[in-house]
Protein backbone atom coordinates (compact mmCIF):
# COMPACT_ATOMS: atom_id res chain seq x y z
CA UNK A 1 0.00 0.00 0.00
CA UNK A 2 2.78 2.44 0.90
CA UNK A 3 4.57 1.51 -2.33
CA UNK A 4 1.46 2.40 -4.29
CA UNK A 5 1.08 5.66 -2.38
CA UNK A 6 4.70 6.55 -3.09
CA UNK A 7 4.14 5.78 -6.79
CA UNK A 8 1.09 8.04 -6.92
CA UNK A 9 2.89 10.85 -5.09
CA UNK A 10 5.79 10.50 -7.52
CA UNK A 11 3.42 10.90 -10.44
CA UNK A 12 1.86 13.96 -8.81
CA UNK A 13 5.28 15.58 -8.45
CA UNK A 14 6.03 14.80 -12.10
CA UNK A 15 2.81 16.52 -13.14
CA UNK A 16 3.78 19.83 -11.52
CA UNK A 17 6.32 20.99 -14.16
CA UNK A 18 3.87 19.99 -16.90
CA UNK A 19 1.07 22.09 -15.44
CA UNK A 20 3.50 24.97 -14.98
CA UNK A 21 4.69 24.55 -18.57
CA UNK A 22 1.11 24.67 -19.82
CA UNK A 23 0.45 27.88 -17.87
CA UNK A 24 3.59 29.52 -19.27
CA UNK A 25 2.72 28.42 -22.82
CA UNK A 26 -0.78 29.77 -22.30
CA UNK A 27 0.62 33.10 -21.13
CA UNK A 28 2.93 33.35 -24.15
CA UNK A 29 0.08 32.54 -26.55
CA UNK A 30 -2.09 35.18 -24.91
CA UNK A 31 0.72 37.68 -25.50
CA UNK A 32 1.11 36.62 -29.12
CA UNK A 33 -2.60 37.17 -29.70
CA UNK A 34 -3.48 40.49 -31.31
CA UNK A 35 -4.95 43.04 -28.85
CA UNK A 36 -5.10 42.85 -25.04
CA UNK A 37 -7.78 43.34 -22.40
CA UNK A 38 -7.32 47.10 -22.49
CA UNK A 39 -7.86 47.45 -26.24
CA UNK A 40 -10.87 45.11 -26.07
CA UNK A 41 -12.44 47.15 -23.25
CA UNK A 42 -11.61 50.43 -24.95
CA UNK A 43 -13.11 49.06 -28.17
CA UNK A 44 -16.33 48.20 -26.33
CA UNK A 45 -16.42 51.74 -24.96
CA UNK A 46 -16.14 53.01 -28.55
CA UNK A 47 -13.16 55.14 -29.58
CA UNK A 48 -11.80 55.65 -26.08
CA UNK A 49 -9.03 58.26 -25.64
CA UNK A 50 -5.44 56.93 -25.37
CA UNK A 51 -5.17 58.13 -21.74
CA UNK A 52 -8.09 55.87 -20.83
CA UNK A 53 -6.41 52.88 -22.54
CA UNK A 54 -3.16 53.64 -20.70
CA UNK A 55 -5.07 53.83 -17.41
CA UNK A 56 -6.71 50.46 -18.14
CA UNK A 57 -3.30 48.94 -18.99
CA UNK A 58 -2.01 50.18 -15.65
CA UNK A 59 -5.05 48.81 -13.78
CA UNK A 60 -4.61 45.37 -15.30
CA UNK A 61 -0.84 45.42 -14.72
CA UNK A 62 -0.13 45.33 -18.45
CA UNK A 63 2.58 48.00 -18.15
CA UNK A 64 4.64 45.79 -15.83
CA UNK A 65 7.65 43.80 -17.05
CA UNK A 66 6.77 40.50 -18.71
CA UNK A 67 7.98 38.25 -15.89
CA UNK A 68 5.87 40.08 -13.29
CA UNK A 69 2.89 39.73 -15.58
CA UNK A 70 3.65 36.01 -15.80
CA UNK A 71 3.75 35.66 -12.00
CA UNK A 72 0.49 37.57 -11.79
CA UNK A 73 -1.01 35.27 -14.42
CA UNK A 74 0.09 32.12 -12.55
CA UNK A 75 -1.34 33.52 -9.31
CA UNK A 76 -4.66 34.31 -11.04
CA UNK A 77 -4.95 30.88 -12.64
CA UNK A 78 -4.11 29.05 -9.41
CA UNK A 79 -6.70 31.08 -7.47
CA UNK A 80 -9.24 30.31 -10.23
CA UNK A 81 -9.51 34.00 -11.12
CA UNK A 82 -9.93 33.37 -14.83
CA UNK A 83 -10.92 36.85 -15.92
CA UNK A 84 -14.01 38.31 -17.47
CA UNK A 85 -15.39 37.74 -20.95
CA UNK A 86 -16.41 41.15 -22.26
CA UNK A 87 -18.00 39.59 -25.34
CA UNK A 88 -20.32 37.39 -23.28
CA UNK A 89 -20.60 39.87 -20.37
CA UNK A 90 -19.93 37.17 -17.82
CA UNK A 91 -17.02 35.94 -15.69
CA UNK A 92 -15.11 33.25 -17.61
CA UNK A 93 -15.37 30.77 -14.73
CA UNK A 94 -19.18 31.05 -14.64
CA UNK A 95 -19.41 30.69 -18.44
CA UNK A 96 -17.30 27.57 -18.34
CA UNK A 97 -19.15 25.96 -15.45
CA UNK A 98 -22.43 26.52 -17.31
CA UNK A 99 -21.12 24.77 -20.40
CA UNK A 100 -19.25 22.00 -18.60
CA UNK A 101 -22.26 19.76 -17.97
CA UNK A 102 -23.34 19.17 -21.58
CA UNK A 103 -19.73 18.52 -22.64
CA UNK A 104 -19.09 16.04 -19.82
CA UNK A 105 -22.33 14.25 -20.73
CA UNK A 106 -21.26 14.04 -24.37
CA UNK A 107 -17.71 12.95 -23.50
CA UNK A 108 -18.80 10.37 -20.94
CA UNK A 109 -21.30 8.77 -23.29
CA UNK A 110 -18.72 8.78 -26.07
CA UNK A 111 -16.13 7.14 -23.85
CA UNK A 112 -18.56 4.38 -22.87
CA UNK A 113 -19.67 3.74 -26.47
CA UNK A 114 -16.17 3.73 -27.96
CA UNK A 115 -14.51 1.59 -25.28
CA UNK A 116 -17.49 -0.75 -24.94
CA UNK A 117 -18.10 -1.42 -28.62
CA UNK A 118 -14.42 -1.17 -29.53
CA UNK A 119 -13.44 -3.86 -27.03
CA UNK A 120 -16.42 -6.02 -28.00
CA UNK A 121 -15.75 -5.78 -31.75
CA UNK A 122 -12.02 -6.36 -31.28
CA UNK A 123 -12.79 -9.41 -29.16
CA UNK A 124 -15.16 -10.82 -31.80
CA UNK A 125 -12.62 -10.17 -34.55
CA UNK A 126 -9.83 -11.87 -32.58
CA UNK A 127 -11.98 -14.91 -31.76
CA UNK A 128 -13.00 -15.28 -35.41
CA UNK A 129 -9.62 -14.36 -36.83
CA UNK A 130 -9.38 -14.55 -40.64
CA UNK A 131 -13.04 -15.50 -40.98
CA UNK A 132 -15.70 -13.27 -42.51
CA UNK A 133 -16.70 -11.55 -39.26
CA UNK A 134 -13.08 -10.57 -38.65
CA UNK A 135 -12.63 -9.36 -42.23
CA UNK A 136 -15.80 -7.26 -42.10
CA UNK A 137 -14.93 -5.71 -38.73
CA UNK A 138 -11.36 -4.97 -39.83
CA UNK A 139 -12.46 -3.32 -43.10
CA UNK A 140 -15.06 -1.19 -41.30
CA UNK A 141 -12.47 -0.18 -38.71
CA UNK A 142 -9.99 0.92 -41.40
CA UNK A 143 -12.69 3.00 -43.10
CA UNK A 144 -13.90 4.57 -39.84
CA UNK A 145 -10.27 5.38 -39.07
CA UNK A 146 -10.03 7.51 -42.22
CA UNK A 147 -13.40 9.28 -41.96
CA UNK A 148 -13.49 12.98 -41.08
CA UNK A 149 -15.52 13.48 -37.91
CA UNK A 150 -17.48 16.50 -39.09
CA UNK A 151 -18.38 14.82 -42.36
CA UNK A 152 -19.77 11.61 -40.83
CA UNK A 153 -21.78 13.81 -38.44
CA UNK A 154 -23.36 15.68 -41.34
CA UNK A 155 -24.05 12.44 -43.23
CA UNK A 156 -25.73 10.92 -40.15
CA UNK A 157 -27.94 14.03 -39.98
CA UNK A 158 -28.85 13.59 -43.67
CA UNK A 159 -29.73 9.92 -43.18
CA UNK A 160 -31.33 9.74 -39.72
CA UNK A 161 -32.76 13.23 -39.30
CA UNK A 162 -33.63 14.51 -42.76
CA UNK A 163 -34.39 11.39 -44.83
CA UNK A 164 -35.72 8.99 -42.16
CA UNK A 165 -36.81 11.65 -39.63
CA UNK A 166 -35.98 9.34 -36.69
CA UNK A 167 -33.72 11.64 -34.67
CA UNK A 168 -33.47 15.38 -34.04
CA UNK A 169 -30.94 17.33 -36.14
CA UNK A 170 -29.40 19.71 -33.60
CA UNK A 171 -29.46 21.00 -30.04
CA UNK A 172 -29.51 19.20 -26.69
CA UNK A 173 -33.22 19.24 -25.96
CA UNK A 174 -36.57 20.35 -27.33
CA UNK A 175 -36.67 23.66 -25.46
CA UNK A 176 -40.16 24.61 -26.59
CA UNK A 177 -41.66 21.41 -25.16
CA UNK A 178 -40.81 22.25 -21.50
CA UNK A 179 -40.30 18.58 -20.61
CA UNK A 180 -39.72 17.71 -16.97
CA UNK A 181 -38.45 14.69 -15.07
CA UNK A 182 -38.00 11.48 -17.06
CA UNK A 183 -39.49 13.03 -20.20
CA UNK A 184 -36.66 15.54 -20.20
CA UNK A 185 -34.02 12.84 -19.62
CA UNK A 186 -35.45 10.85 -22.50
CA UNK A 187 -35.54 13.94 -24.71
CA UNK A 188 -31.87 14.73 -23.98
CA UNK A 189 -30.90 11.09 -24.55
CA UNK A 190 -32.66 11.25 -27.91
CA UNK A 191 -30.65 14.33 -28.86
CA UNK A 192 -27.46 12.71 -27.62
CA UNK A 193 -27.52 9.71 -29.98
CA UNK A 194 -26.05 11.26 -33.13
CA UNK A 195 -23.39 13.52 -31.53
CA UNK A 196 -22.13 10.72 -29.28
CA UNK A 197 -22.07 8.23 -32.15
CA UNK A 198 -20.15 10.67 -34.35
CA UNK A 199 -17.59 11.41 -31.67
CA UNK A 200 -17.21 7.69 -30.83
CA UNK A 201 -16.51 6.39 -34.30
CA UNK A 202 -12.79 7.12 -34.62
CA UNK A 203 -11.81 5.75 -31.23
CA UNK A 204 -14.15 2.81 -31.55
CA UNK A 205 -12.18 1.87 -34.67
CA UNK A 206 -8.89 2.42 -32.87
CA UNK A 207 -9.91 0.28 -29.87
CA UNK A 208 -11.21 -2.44 -32.18
CA UNK A 209 -7.86 -2.69 -33.96
CA UNK A 210 -5.87 -2.36 -30.75
CA UNK A 211 -7.94 -4.99 -28.96
CA UNK A 212 -7.74 -7.43 -31.86
CA UNK A 213 -3.96 -7.07 -32.10
CA UNK A 214 -3.48 -7.33 -28.32
CA UNK A 215 -5.70 -10.43 -28.08
CA UNK A 216 -3.81 -12.15 -30.88
CA UNK A 217 -0.46 -11.19 -29.38
CA UNK A 218 -1.41 -12.41 -25.90
CA UNK A 219 -2.83 -15.67 -27.29
CA UNK A 220 0.68 -16.66 -28.37
CA UNK A 221 2.21 -16.11 -24.91
CA UNK A 222 3.58 -18.90 -22.76
CA UNK A 223 1.14 -18.38 -19.93
CA UNK A 224 -1.65 -19.34 -22.32
CA UNK A 225 0.11 -22.60 -23.11
CA UNK A 226 0.48 -23.17 -19.36
CA UNK A 227 -3.20 -22.48 -18.80
CA UNK A 228 -4.08 -24.89 -21.60
CA UNK A 229 -1.76 -27.54 -20.14
CA UNK A 230 -3.53 -27.15 -16.79
CA UNK A 231 -6.67 -28.20 -18.64
CA UNK A 232 -8.59 -24.91 -18.46
CA UNK A 233 -11.41 -24.47 -20.95
CA UNK A 234 -10.77 -22.19 -23.94
CA UNK A 235 -13.60 -19.93 -22.77
CA UNK A 236 -11.93 -19.46 -19.38
CA UNK A 237 -8.51 -18.87 -20.98
CA UNK A 238 -9.93 -16.23 -23.31
CA UNK A 239 -12.00 -14.32 -20.78
CA UNK A 240 -10.03 -14.71 -17.56
CA UNK A 241 -6.45 -14.69 -18.86
CA UNK A 242 -6.05 -13.19 -22.33
CA UNK A 243 -8.76 -10.53 -22.07
CA UNK A 244 -7.35 -9.00 -18.89
CA UNK A 245 -3.89 -8.59 -20.35
CA UNK A 246 -5.17 -7.41 -23.72
CA UNK A 247 -7.10 -4.65 -22.00
CA UNK A 248 -3.97 -2.82 -20.78
CA UNK A 249 -3.02 -1.16 -24.11
CA UNK A 250 -6.65 -0.02 -24.49
CA UNK A 251 -6.49 1.62 -21.07
CA UNK A 252 -3.34 3.52 -22.05
CA UNK A 253 -5.11 5.01 -25.05
CA UNK A 254 -8.10 6.12 -22.94
CA UNK A 255 -5.86 8.80 -21.42
CA UNK A 256 -4.98 10.01 -24.91
CA UNK A 257 -8.60 9.85 -26.01
CA UNK A 258 -9.78 12.34 -23.36
CA UNK A 259 -7.57 15.03 -24.87
CA UNK A 260 -8.66 14.32 -28.40
CA UNK A 261 -12.32 14.10 -27.29
CA UNK A 262 -12.16 17.75 -26.24
CA UNK A 263 -10.79 18.71 -29.66
CA UNK A 264 -13.38 16.51 -31.33
CA UNK A 265 -16.14 18.07 -29.24
CA UNK A 266 -15.34 21.48 -30.78
CA UNK A 267 -16.20 19.98 -34.17
CA UNK A 268 -19.11 17.82 -33.08
CA UNK A 269 -20.67 20.60 -31.00
CA UNK A 270 -20.32 22.95 -33.97
CA UNK A 271 -22.04 20.41 -36.24
CA UNK A 272 -24.87 19.49 -33.86
CA UNK A 273 -25.22 22.87 -32.06
CA UNK A 274 -24.55 21.04 -28.77
CA UNK A 275 -24.37 23.75 -26.07
CA UNK A 276 -21.09 22.74 -24.43
CA UNK A 277 -17.49 23.86 -23.99
CA UNK A 278 -16.59 23.01 -27.59
CA UNK A 279 -19.24 25.38 -28.88
CA UNK A 280 -18.06 28.03 -26.43
CA UNK A 281 -14.53 27.61 -27.79
CA UNK A 282 -15.87 27.89 -31.33
CA UNK A 283 -17.79 31.08 -30.47
CA UNK A 284 -14.83 32.66 -28.65
CA UNK A 285 -12.71 31.87 -31.70
CA UNK A 286 -14.80 34.04 -33.97
CA UNK A 287 -15.51 36.73 -31.39
CA UNK A 288 -11.69 36.92 -31.05
CA UNK A 289 -12.18 36.44 -27.30
CA UNK A 290 -8.69 35.01 -26.83
CA UNK A 291 -8.71 35.00 -23.02
CA UNK A 292 -11.78 32.75 -22.98
CA UNK A 293 -10.35 30.51 -25.72
CA UNK A 294 -7.07 30.12 -23.84
CA UNK A 295 -8.80 29.33 -20.54
CA UNK A 296 -10.66 26.51 -22.29
CA UNK A 297 -7.35 25.44 -23.79
CA UNK A 298 -5.72 25.44 -20.35
CA UNK A 299 -8.56 23.50 -18.73
CA UNK A 300 -8.52 20.84 -21.44
CA UNK A 301 -4.77 20.34 -20.99
CA UNK A 302 -5.27 20.22 -17.22
CA UNK A 303 -7.98 17.60 -17.64
CA UNK A 304 -5.57 15.42 -19.64
CA UNK A 305 -2.98 15.66 -16.84
CA UNK A 306 -5.60 14.56 -14.29
CA UNK A 307 -6.89 11.72 -16.47
CA UNK A 308 -3.35 10.47 -17.07
CA UNK A 309 -2.82 10.37 -13.30
CA UNK A 310 -6.05 8.41 -12.84
CA UNK A 311 -5.08 6.00 -15.64
CA UNK A 312 -1.70 5.44 -13.97
CA UNK A 313 -3.43 4.59 -10.71
CA UNK A 314 -5.85 2.17 -12.40
CA UNK A 315 -2.88 0.64 -14.16
CA UNK A 316 -1.21 -0.21 -10.85
CA UNK A 317 -4.43 -1.84 -9.69
CA UNK A 318 -4.64 -3.99 -12.82
CA UNK A 319 -0.96 -4.81 -13.18
CA UNK A 320 0.90 -4.96 -9.83
CA UNK A 321 4.29 -5.28 -11.58
CA UNK A 322 4.18 -1.62 -12.63
CA UNK A 323 4.80 -0.22 -9.15
CA UNK A 324 7.97 -2.22 -8.82
CA UNK A 325 9.59 -0.38 -11.74
Amino acid sequence: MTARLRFILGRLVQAVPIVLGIIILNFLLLHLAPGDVATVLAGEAGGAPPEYVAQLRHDFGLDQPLWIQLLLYIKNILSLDLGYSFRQSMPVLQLILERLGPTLLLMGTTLLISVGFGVLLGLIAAMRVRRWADTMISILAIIAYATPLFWIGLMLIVLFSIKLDWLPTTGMETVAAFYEGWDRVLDIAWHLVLPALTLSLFYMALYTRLMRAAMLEQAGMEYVTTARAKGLTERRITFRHILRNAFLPVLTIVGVQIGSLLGGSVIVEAVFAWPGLGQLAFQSLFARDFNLLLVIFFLSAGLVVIVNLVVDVIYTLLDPRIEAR
Partner: protein
Amino acid sequence: MIRASLWQRFAASRSGLIGLAILVLVLILAASAPVFFPGDPFAIVDKPFLPPFGTHLLGTDSLGRDMAAGIAHGAGTSLMIGLVATLAALFIGTLIGAFAGFYGGLVDNLLMRLTELFQTIPSFIFAIVLVAILSPSLSSTIIAIAVVSWPPIARLVRGEFLSLRRREFVEAAIVLGMGDLQMIFRQILPNCLSAIIVTGSLLVATAILVESALAFLGLGDPNIMSWGFMIGAGRTYLRTAWWLCAIPGIAILLTVLAINLVGEGLNDALNPRLRTL
Protein backbone atom coordinates in the same frame (compact mmCIF):
# COMPACT_ATOMS: atom_id res chain seq x y z
CA MET B 1 18.50 -5.61 -55.66
CA ILE B 2 17.31 -4.31 -52.32
CA ARG B 3 14.81 -2.04 -54.02
CA ALA B 4 13.32 -4.88 -56.01
CA SER B 5 12.85 -6.99 -52.92
CA LEU B 6 11.36 -4.06 -51.03
CA TRP B 7 8.82 -3.57 -53.81
CA GLN B 8 8.08 -7.29 -53.82
CA ARG B 9 7.45 -7.23 -50.10
CA PHE B 10 5.20 -4.20 -50.45
CA ALA B 11 3.34 -5.76 -53.38
CA ALA B 12 2.64 -8.84 -51.26
CA SER B 13 0.00 -6.90 -49.34
CA ARG B 14 -3.17 -6.48 -51.36
CA SER B 15 -4.48 -3.59 -49.26
CA GLY B 16 -1.19 -1.72 -49.72
CA LEU B 17 -1.55 -2.03 -53.51
CA ILE B 18 -5.17 -0.84 -53.40
CA GLY B 19 -4.08 2.15 -51.33
CA LEU B 20 -1.24 2.93 -53.74
CA ALA B 21 -3.64 2.77 -56.72
CA ILE B 22 -6.06 5.23 -55.09
CA LEU B 23 -3.21 7.51 -54.05
CA VAL B 24 -1.83 7.59 -57.61
CA LEU B 25 -5.29 8.55 -58.88
CA VAL B 26 -5.49 11.41 -56.36
CA LEU B 27 -2.01 12.56 -57.37
CA ILE B 28 -3.03 12.53 -61.05
CA LEU B 29 -6.19 14.48 -60.14
CA ALA B 30 -4.14 17.08 -58.27
CA ALA B 31 -1.57 17.38 -61.05
CA SER B 32 -4.17 17.67 -63.80
CA ALA B 33 -6.29 20.30 -61.99
CA PRO B 34 -4.66 23.27 -63.79
CA VAL B 35 -5.11 21.47 -67.14
CA PHE B 36 -8.75 20.38 -66.87
CA PHE B 37 -9.91 23.23 -64.66
CA PRO B 38 -7.75 26.22 -65.55
CA GLY B 39 -8.51 29.44 -63.78
CA ASP B 40 -9.93 30.15 -60.36
CA PRO B 41 -11.89 27.34 -58.64
CA PHE B 42 -13.78 30.11 -56.80
CA ALA B 43 -15.14 31.44 -60.15
CA ILE B 44 -18.89 31.28 -60.73
CA VAL B 45 -19.58 29.18 -63.82
CA ASP B 46 -23.32 28.43 -63.88
CA LYS B 47 -26.62 28.51 -61.98
CA PRO B 48 -26.31 27.43 -58.32
CA PHE B 49 -27.38 24.00 -56.95
CA LEU B 50 -27.11 22.07 -60.23
CA PRO B 51 -27.12 18.37 -59.25
CA PRO B 52 -24.19 16.10 -60.20
CA PHE B 53 -23.96 14.29 -63.55
CA GLY B 54 -25.58 17.16 -65.46
CA THR B 55 -23.72 19.72 -67.56
CA HIS B 56 -21.10 19.78 -64.79
CA LEU B 57 -19.77 16.40 -63.71
CA LEU B 58 -20.27 17.04 -59.97
CA GLY B 59 -22.79 19.88 -60.23
CA THR B 60 -22.45 23.40 -58.84
CA ASP B 61 -22.50 24.73 -55.27
CA SER B 62 -24.65 27.37 -53.56
CA LEU B 63 -22.95 30.20 -55.50
CA GLY B 64 -22.71 28.40 -58.83
CA ARG B 65 -19.06 27.36 -58.51
CA ASP B 66 -18.02 24.15 -60.30
CA MET B 67 -17.81 21.33 -57.71
CA ALA B 68 -15.48 19.23 -59.90
CA ALA B 69 -13.02 22.12 -60.14
CA GLY B 70 -13.15 22.49 -56.37
CA ILE B 71 -12.48 18.77 -55.85
CA ALA B 72 -9.56 18.78 -58.30
CA HIS B 73 -7.93 21.91 -56.85
CA GLY B 74 -8.69 20.73 -53.29
CA ALA B 75 -6.71 17.53 -53.96
CA GLY B 76 -3.56 19.57 -54.46
CA THR B 77 -4.23 21.62 -51.32
CA SER B 78 -4.76 18.56 -49.13
CA LEU B 79 -1.71 16.69 -50.41
CA MET B 80 0.53 19.75 -50.27
CA ILE B 81 -0.44 20.75 -46.73
CA GLY B 82 -0.30 17.12 -45.56
CA LEU B 83 3.17 16.66 -47.04
CA VAL B 84 4.75 19.97 -46.02
CA ALA B 85 3.33 19.87 -42.48
CA THR B 86 4.56 16.28 -42.09
CA LEU B 87 8.05 17.18 -43.34
CA ALA B 88 8.19 20.07 -40.88
CA ALA B 89 7.03 17.80 -38.02
CA LEU B 90 9.59 15.16 -39.04
CA PHE B 91 12.31 17.81 -39.03
CA ILE B 92 11.49 19.07 -35.50
CA GLY B 93 10.79 15.60 -34.10
CA THR B 94 13.90 14.03 -35.58
CA LEU B 95 16.20 16.80 -34.33
CA ILE B 96 14.81 16.71 -30.79
CA GLY B 97 14.66 12.92 -30.63
CA ALA B 98 18.16 12.52 -32.07
CA PHE B 99 19.80 14.94 -29.65
CA ALA B 100 17.89 13.53 -26.67
CA GLY B 101 18.77 9.95 -27.54
CA PHE B 102 22.39 10.68 -28.49
CA TYR B 103 23.44 12.83 -25.56
CA GLY B 104 21.20 11.36 -22.84
CA GLY B 105 21.45 12.75 -19.32
CA LEU B 106 20.33 16.33 -18.75
CA VAL B 107 19.79 17.11 -22.45
CA ASP B 108 17.57 14.05 -22.76
CA ASN B 109 15.71 14.93 -19.58
CA LEU B 110 14.97 18.49 -20.66
CA LEU B 111 14.01 17.63 -24.24
CA MET B 112 11.77 14.79 -23.13
CA ARG B 113 10.00 17.02 -20.59
CA LEU B 114 9.32 19.44 -23.45
CA THR B 115 8.04 16.58 -25.60
CA GLU B 116 5.83 15.36 -22.76
CA LEU B 117 4.40 18.86 -22.35
CA PHE B 118 3.49 19.09 -26.02
CA GLN B 119 2.07 15.59 -25.97
CA THR B 120 -0.17 16.37 -22.99
CA ILE B 121 -1.84 19.34 -24.67
CA PRO B 122 -4.88 18.20 -26.67
CA SER B 123 -3.59 18.52 -30.21
CA PHE B 124 -6.67 19.67 -32.11
CA ILE B 125 -7.52 22.43 -29.61
CA PHE B 126 -3.86 23.48 -29.70
CA ALA B 127 -4.00 23.65 -33.50
CA ILE B 128 -7.18 25.76 -33.35
CA VAL B 129 -5.60 28.17 -30.86
CA LEU B 130 -2.44 28.50 -32.96
CA VAL B 131 -4.31 29.20 -36.19
CA ALA B 132 -6.62 31.66 -34.43
CA ILE B 133 -3.68 33.58 -32.97
CA LEU B 134 -1.57 33.51 -36.13
CA SER B 135 -4.73 34.35 -38.16
CA PRO B 136 -5.88 31.83 -40.79
CA SER B 137 -3.56 31.33 -43.75
CA LEU B 138 -1.74 28.54 -45.58
CA SER B 139 1.42 28.96 -43.52
CA SER B 140 -0.38 29.13 -40.17
CA THR B 141 -2.22 25.89 -40.99
CA ILE B 142 1.09 24.19 -41.78
CA ILE B 143 2.79 25.61 -38.67
CA ALA B 144 -0.12 24.57 -36.43
CA ILE B 145 -0.18 20.99 -37.76
CA ALA B 146 3.61 20.67 -37.51
CA VAL B 147 3.71 22.04 -33.95
CA VAL B 148 1.10 19.56 -32.71
CA SER B 149 2.45 16.51 -34.59
CA TRP B 150 6.15 16.27 -33.77
CA PRO B 151 6.12 14.68 -30.25
CA PRO B 152 5.49 11.05 -31.31
CA ILE B 153 8.32 11.34 -33.83
CA ALA B 154 10.71 12.69 -31.22
CA ARG B 155 9.88 9.74 -28.97
CA LEU B 156 10.32 7.25 -31.78
CA VAL B 157 13.67 8.68 -32.93
CA ARG B 158 14.92 8.93 -29.35
CA GLY B 159 14.09 5.28 -28.78
CA GLU B 160 15.93 4.23 -31.95
CA PHE B 161 18.94 6.37 -31.01
CA LEU B 162 19.05 4.92 -27.51
CA SER B 163 19.29 1.40 -28.86
CA LEU B 164 21.67 2.24 -31.73
CA ARG B 165 23.96 4.36 -29.54
CA ARG B 166 25.57 1.29 -27.94
CA ARG B 167 26.15 -0.58 -31.20
CA GLU B 168 29.62 -1.41 -32.43
CA PHE B 169 29.51 0.79 -35.50
CA VAL B 170 29.02 3.83 -33.27
CA GLU B 171 31.92 2.79 -31.06
CA ALA B 172 34.01 2.38 -34.21
CA ALA B 173 33.04 5.90 -35.26
CA ILE B 174 34.06 7.25 -31.85
CA VAL B 175 37.41 5.50 -32.12
CA LEU B 176 37.89 7.04 -35.58
CA GLY B 177 37.46 10.45 -33.93
CA MET B 178 34.26 11.36 -35.75
CA GLY B 179 32.42 14.52 -34.64
CA ASP B 180 29.10 14.27 -32.82
CA LEU B 181 27.04 15.85 -35.60
CA GLN B 182 28.58 13.61 -38.22
CA MET B 183 27.88 10.57 -36.07
CA ILE B 184 24.28 11.63 -35.48
CA PHE B 185 23.40 12.48 -39.07
CA ARG B 186 25.72 10.27 -41.14
CA GLN B 187 25.95 7.15 -39.01
CA ILE B 188 22.94 6.69 -36.70
CA LEU B 189 20.13 8.57 -38.43
CA PRO B 190 20.25 6.54 -41.67
CA ASN B 191 19.59 3.45 -39.55
CA CYS B 192 16.35 4.92 -38.20
CA LEU B 193 15.03 5.94 -41.61
CA SER B 194 12.66 3.02 -42.13
CA ALA B 195 10.86 3.70 -38.84
CA ILE B 196 10.70 7.42 -39.61
CA ILE B 197 9.32 6.80 -43.10
CA VAL B 198 6.52 4.56 -41.82
CA THR B 199 5.46 6.98 -39.07
CA GLY B 200 5.78 9.91 -41.46
CA SER B 201 3.54 8.32 -44.06
CA LEU B 202 0.80 7.73 -41.48
CA LEU B 203 1.27 11.29 -40.24
CA VAL B 204 0.42 12.66 -43.70
CA ALA B 205 -3.03 11.08 -43.34
CA THR B 206 -3.59 12.63 -39.91
CA ALA B 207 -2.37 16.00 -41.19
CA ILE B 208 -4.90 15.91 -44.02
CA LEU B 209 -7.70 15.13 -41.54
CA VAL B 210 -6.65 18.02 -39.28
CA GLU B 211 -6.35 20.40 -42.23
CA SER B 212 -9.83 19.52 -43.46
CA ALA B 213 -11.30 19.97 -39.97
CA LEU B 214 -9.65 23.40 -39.60
CA ALA B 215 -10.93 24.46 -43.02
CA PHE B 216 -14.40 23.14 -42.14
CA LEU B 217 -14.46 25.33 -39.01
CA GLY B 218 -13.58 28.34 -41.18
CA LEU B 219 -9.92 28.44 -40.14
CA GLY B 220 -8.45 27.62 -43.54
CA ASP B 221 -6.77 30.04 -45.93
CA PRO B 222 -9.70 31.99 -47.44
CA ASN B 223 -7.97 32.20 -50.84
CA ILE B 224 -7.25 28.52 -51.29
CA MET B 225 -9.83 25.91 -52.30
CA SER B 226 -9.93 22.93 -49.97
CA TRP B 227 -12.23 19.98 -49.35
CA GLY B 228 -12.89 20.95 -45.74
CA PHE B 229 -13.93 24.44 -46.83
CA MET B 230 -16.33 22.97 -49.43
CA ILE B 231 -18.04 20.85 -46.75
CA GLY B 232 -18.27 23.86 -44.43
CA ALA B 233 -19.79 25.96 -47.21
CA GLY B 234 -22.32 23.27 -48.16
CA ARG B 235 -23.41 22.61 -44.57
CA THR B 236 -26.26 25.13 -44.57
CA TYR B 237 -27.90 23.41 -47.55
CA LEU B 238 -27.87 19.90 -46.09
CA ARG B 239 -31.65 19.60 -46.40
CA THR B 240 -31.87 20.55 -50.08
CA ALA B 241 -28.46 19.68 -51.53
CA TRP B 242 -26.74 17.07 -49.35
CA TRP B 243 -24.28 16.15 -52.13
CA LEU B 244 -22.48 19.47 -51.63
CA CYS B 245 -21.15 17.98 -48.39
CA ALA B 246 -21.10 14.32 -49.41
CA ILE B 247 -18.75 14.62 -52.41
CA PRO B 248 -15.78 16.44 -50.81
CA GLY B 249 -16.09 14.16 -47.76
CA ILE B 250 -15.74 11.06 -49.92
CA ALA B 251 -12.64 12.63 -51.47
CA ILE B 252 -11.09 13.15 -48.01
CA LEU B 253 -12.06 9.66 -46.89
CA LEU B 254 -10.55 7.95 -49.95
CA THR B 255 -7.32 9.96 -49.79
CA VAL B 256 -6.78 9.39 -46.07
CA LEU B 257 -7.70 5.71 -46.42
CA ALA B 258 -5.25 5.30 -49.31
CA ILE B 259 -2.40 6.90 -47.37
CA ASN B 260 -3.13 4.76 -44.30
CA LEU B 261 -3.11 1.59 -46.42
CA VAL B 262 0.15 2.56 -48.11
CA GLY B 263 1.68 3.39 -44.72
CA GLU B 264 0.71 0.00 -43.33
CA GLY B 265 2.02 -1.72 -46.46
CA LEU B 266 5.31 0.13 -46.03
CA ASN B 267 5.39 -0.90 -42.38
CA ASP B 268 5.06 -4.57 -43.29
CA ALA B 269 7.66 -4.23 -46.05
CA LEU B 270 10.23 -2.23 -44.07
CA ASN B 271 9.83 -3.71 -40.58
CA PRO B 272 8.80 -7.31 -41.12
CA ARG B 273 9.48 -8.05 -37.45
CA LEU B 274 7.20 -5.36 -36.08
CA ARG B 275 3.76 -6.21 -37.33
CA THR B 276 1.80 -4.06 -34.97
CA LEU B 277 -1.97 -3.92 -35.42
